[in-house]
């Protein structure tokens, strides 16, 4: 075990530049000693917030409604939706892409930022990963739900069938299956691995034998011995390395569901980067929506500081601007191609067509709102952050809707142009998926340590160590082991 023979100096007392850096928005503020900190962070597991029960029941009811809407779809057929020819894909696929996109922030935070040594990730990564998982649960439901004959969904998987027929590997849909299932598996493992030490902590502090046993089972008998920690770090980093390319690959592949088609509005080479950026964008928007209330309710201001909010806001600013650039490229490409149909879809139908209002809302929300974050004060203003988060969350759903429906409803032959209107089932599936997400997330908040206790403690140690040892030039001396 690495022993740091450092005098416990109160962070902030030392006035170095590097330290001043951290000083402005420290990653953690006036943290107590490990024991108290652990108690603080695990406290939510033992006591239930009064509002929790009602929220939990509400979201549970909504999830049941989700199940019912699915039942209608399976019993009656896709006809229960508003889909038609030409608009054969609509809400379900919009929801699918939307949830997949949201599911990107988690792994991005935990894997990407881990590899990049972004310490601030520590306090929020568990929340983000949980969000990812629950988003993926929804995302993986919709494609199956969307099939005309869902009971044959396994035909998309390459397996030796007695029919002697294989999936069509030229189509991007079988790639989807592979991409999403891989992503889900890795995210789950990654999340669980990170949990183990905290589960052990929970096991050790749980009041009552039953809880201790339950947490004990999931803690897999974690002792916190040096060996365990060493293996743990290696495994964790490896998984991070494995997950990182997935962040890019999954949504690239999802984007190909559209890009390989020759439909104006889909047929575009910029889709993969465009979709990945959009995904991370929407993901962080939702992280904000989740982190801010949690931080407020559970008084986590000392572990989730303004520093985190500031960074998330900056990420939104960057991804938002990239997205704006993609929008621009799309439109320009259409114009520059000189193609009659491309131009009509991108320049006429989008801006003046039947769904123009959604297009303009989407553009306004996704392009303009993040620009607020050029101002530091807004970056750390909780209210602004939350509002913007919600707006982007909706804006990104609209983006997918516009891409899918507004492209399909007016394609090549004007004779086949037709509008799309969702039915109550379409709405129920959308609302229900949000319900299911909330249900799972609330359960997570209640029974799982949602702030990575061990990591926070580790980061705290390192920060303390650094701030103690940083010399005038901000260089760090050898650590003696």
């Amino acid at each position, binding site marked *: 075990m690495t022993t740091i023979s450092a005098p416990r100096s109160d962070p902030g007392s030392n006035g170095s530049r590097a330290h001043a850096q951290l000083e402005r928005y420290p990653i953690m503020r006036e943290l107590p000693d490990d024991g108290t900190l652990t108690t603080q962070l695990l406290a939510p597991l033992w006591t239930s917030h009064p509002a929790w029960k009602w929220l939990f029941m509400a979201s549970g009811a909504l999830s049941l409604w989700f*199940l019912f809407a699915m039942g209608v779809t399976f019993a009656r*057929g896709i006809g229960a939706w508003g889909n038609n020819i030409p608009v054969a894909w609509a809400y379900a696929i919009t929801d699918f892409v939307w949830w997949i996109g949201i599911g990107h922030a988690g792994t991005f935070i935990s894997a990407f930022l881990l590899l990049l040594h972004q310490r601030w990730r520590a306090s929020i990564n568990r929340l983000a990963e949980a969000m990812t998982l629950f988003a993926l649960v929804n995302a993986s439901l919709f494609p199956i739900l969307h099939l005309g004959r869902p009971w044959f969904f396994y035909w998309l998987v390459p397996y030796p069938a007695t029919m002697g027929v294989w999936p069509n590997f030229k189509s991007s849909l079988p790639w989807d299956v592979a991409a999403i299932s891989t992503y889900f598996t890795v995210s789950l493992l990654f999340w669980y691995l990170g949990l183990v030490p905290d589960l052990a902590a929970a096991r050790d502090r749980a009041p009552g034998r039953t809880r201790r046993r339950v947490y004990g089972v999931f803690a897999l008998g974690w002792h916190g011995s040096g060996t365990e920690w060493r293996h743990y770090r290696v495994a964790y980093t490896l998984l991070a390395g494995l997950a990182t390319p997935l962040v890019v690959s999954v949504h690239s592949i999802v984007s190909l569901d559209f890009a390989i088609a020759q439909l104006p509005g889909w047929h575009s080479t910029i889709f993969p980067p465009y979709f990945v950026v959009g995904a991370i964008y929407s993901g962080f928007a939702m992280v904000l929506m989740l982190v801010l209330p949690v931080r407020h309710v559970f008084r986590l201001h000392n572990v989730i500081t303004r520093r985190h909010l500031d960074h998330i806001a900056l990420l939104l600013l960057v991804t938002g601007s990239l997205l704006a650039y993609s929008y621009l490229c799309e439109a320009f490409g259409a114009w520059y191609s000189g193609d009659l149909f491309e131009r009509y879809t991108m320049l006429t139908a989008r801006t003046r067509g039947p769904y123009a209002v959604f297009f303009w809302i989407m553009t306004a929300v996704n392009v303009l709102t993040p620009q607020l974050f050029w101002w530091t004060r807004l970056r750390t203003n909780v209210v602004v952050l939350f509002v913007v988060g919600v707006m982007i969350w909706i804006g990104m759903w609209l983006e997918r809707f516009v891409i899918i429906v507004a492209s399909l409803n007016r*394609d090549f032959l004007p004779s086949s142009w037709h509008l799309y209107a969702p039915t109550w089932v379409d709405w129920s599936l959308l609302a229900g998926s949000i319900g299911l997400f909330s249900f799972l997330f609330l359960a997570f908040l209640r029974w799982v340590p949602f702030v990575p206790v061990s990591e926070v403690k580790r980061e705290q140690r390192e920060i303390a160590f650094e701030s103690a040892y940083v010399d005038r030039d901000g260089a760090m001396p050898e650590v003696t082991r």
Partner: protein
Amino acid sequence: MSRRVEQPEVNLEFPPGAADPPEWVSRRDFLTLLGAGAAMAAGACMRRPDKPILPYVEAPADVVPGMPLYYATAMPLDGYATGVLVRSNTGRPTKIEGNPDHPASLGASGALEQASLLELYDPHRAEAMRVGRRRATWDAFAAAFAPAALSRRVGARGAGLRVLMPPTTSPLTASLLGRLGEAYPDARTHFFAPLASSARIAAARTSLGAALVPQYDFRAADVVVALDADILATGPFHLRYAREWADRRRASPSAQLHVAEPTPSPTGTLAARRLGATWSAVAAIATALVDAVHRDARSTGRVSGTTDASGGALTPDARAWVAAVAADLAAHAGHSIVVCGERQPSDVHVLTNALNDALGNVGTTVWYTPPAVLNDGGPDHDLSALATELRTGGVDTLVILDGNPCYGAPSDIELSRVVGAVHNTVYLGAYDDETARVSTWHLPAAHYLESWGDARAYDGTTSVIQPLIAPLHGGRTADEVLAVLAGQPNNSTHDLLRDAWNSARGQGAPTTESDWSEALRRGVVAGSAFARATPAVRGDAVAQARATVAARGVAREQIEIGFVPSHAVHDGRFADNGWLQELPDPVTKLTWDNAALMAPAMASRLGVATNDVVKLQVGDRALDTPVLVVPGHADGAVALAMGYGRQGGEAVARGVGVNANALRTSQAPHVAPSAAVSRTGRSHELALAQTHWAIEGRGSSIVGEDGEAQRSTASSVQPRKRRPLTLYEPKPPSRDGFGADQWAMVIDLDVCTGCSACVVACQAENNIPVVGKDGVMKSREMHWLRIDRYIDGPPDDPRFETQPMLCQHCEKAPCEYVCPVNATVHSEDGLNEMVYNRCVGTRFCSNNCPYKVRRFNWFDYNGEIAETERMAKNPEVTIRARGVMEKCTFCVQRIRDAQMASRLAGDPATGPVVTACQQSCPTQAIVFGSLTDPESEVSRQFGDPRSFSALDELGTVPRVRYLARRREADSSDSSGGRAR
């Protein structure tokens, strides 16, 4: 309009999902559905039900299970026969096709003929004979109406007996009526059909001196002028006319069609010069044409007395049209035809006869024959006479033989009430319809596919009607009922037929056994057509007619309402036919409704738009009707289709559309001269199969001609784009190696009328379900072959584009590479295959199809249909389940059968394959075949300079090509009636 409420009722006959809105979910549903939701994974139970095999007890002579047989028979419509060949699979009629030997068919079959198959299997047909409320038997009826019994009621001379039936051409019926006359000298027979008009006969009587009807030979015509006449898509001989006109166009592209019509018709959309003119204006135009032609004819030496130009009443556009058309006519005197429509008064028919006479067409392109219809135009064709008789009493027994007159009669006659008052009424009808409900006796009528009989075509050619199946519901024919009345109830119709024909010796009826079997086999009696007559026109009659028309003048302020036959339900006879109700109107694409069609200008004056409900008023009669605004419609005219707003027992028909008969009177049964239209502020959503008519400047890549450009160029033929560059050079079609056939299709837009016969033919051949009005409004029609309609340009005088759109069987199909499960792939012989049993329904293929010709089974459309309807299904085509994609297969079942046959015969080349659409096409606009045979018609037309691929620039390399329409240069001298 309170039809909203009736909607669910209307939809009962459609798959539940399609019909009942998902909005309602019973509490019990809730749990089951919840369960279904939970049990999402557990779906596939692969065990198939064990169906037993039932061999014949005694195998019939020529029936081999799995081998279809074809029989020739004829379908009577408004009395006139159209010859058909009917396919029978082990005793079930499953498909109706044209009879090449029949003059009215020439091998083609219209939408109505095709769809009459579904009528046979209609689950709503009356199934039991009844008297009052009680069930009755045929014997009971025969006993009650045998002369012995009946004469006690109606008197020995039958003074109290009246028979009412639709106009008939049947020699058998004629002879039976004769016998009835012998049995009851004082009994009277009346003929009525809502659409029938005696104007033509009346005109012939006055101007030609005899009851004659005009016959035409379009193959010899260089100029055809149709005055309010949809010659190519409606009428007893329209299949023949369309074919002849198409042949003429193919032979000499300079042949011209000029149309003046109130409401756009398929014929109008093909016109070189089309003029939107109200009904009264058409009459004035006829007069103007007479004058102009005479003036033009002076130079050619043919002069006549009439000189005054009555063109004064006409608009500038109309005058220009008349001038141009008259010049054209005069230039082709002797090789032109002027046709006048049924709805025009007799005077206009007189003028038309005069025109043909003056142009010297009579004898070359036009001649006359006696009418095929019994006593056509006679006094006994006047319903009001009968009505007055019934009102005054004295009629004890009224026998109505089909035709549902109580629905179709003009409202002022109030026939339902009058008939209800008669003590003893017998109705022979297929449905428990409006007439059945006021009749004492109701006898189920046999479908023509269930009955023996005979009928004449428009030119008099006689056909034997032979049954393909025993009556499903014990139906009887009019002849059988007449036989009972005439006192010979025990003879089967077959015997009656033979007797009648033997007695009609020497009138072209077959007498020998061989003649008879030959007539049955060929479907026509050789040489039974009427002799031609070429009488001269009486000048005084013409002058008289001109005077009347001039006196009547042209309606300026008041609005005219014309009552036109529905493209789908005709006069209401086919109202219960789902195929037809869902068949989009050839011009407006309207389904499941009728509407007040009007010009954009008129609509804007009224401040209404499509879907707004207006109140139509004729005198004190009013009718609320949704509006459908149609470019090219004559301003001041409103067209309303008949046959809707049914209140009878036909579940499909009930509540669909409004009843135009409510506005018709016996004085003005076809056109209400002065009507009023006012807005109601209400609205009713119409189900349009196509919601966007403008072509958005994509004409050159879709229909192969760019609107504006054509106007200036002499010919519309453009240099065709070449196949796009590709890395993978396609292997040229060759006779050796796999795929010795390379299937392809060419559709000639120059002769396509958009009549939609192919759409129904495809539906019948390929087991395509009906989705109901809701389905159409959600754009979920299942038609594999649809007719795209583009209406572009100035709203008063637009360009009409017609384009049959079906799977293009692209050599580089966008649908194929996106299917995740290989459910749609390419066959070696160039078919884009759709494998239903492999499809999981991602619908990606449809998204990626630029032609949007793929159809998805949103619900289990085929699961819910009635047992009888199942009998209509073609056993050679898979019944698609819910959740799978489907589309045109080029009738692959026919291709594979042909290939297997040729292989069994040891024939290296595949025999000819005819697709269902191709077979039905009246103009033979559809050509199908293999490209590997350089001699084949399809190969030839692929090379035609007019041939092009739709959306060529996408590089899909379709196997369906179109021949661009030939349009003539804009004769800049005339502003109106621009060349289209």
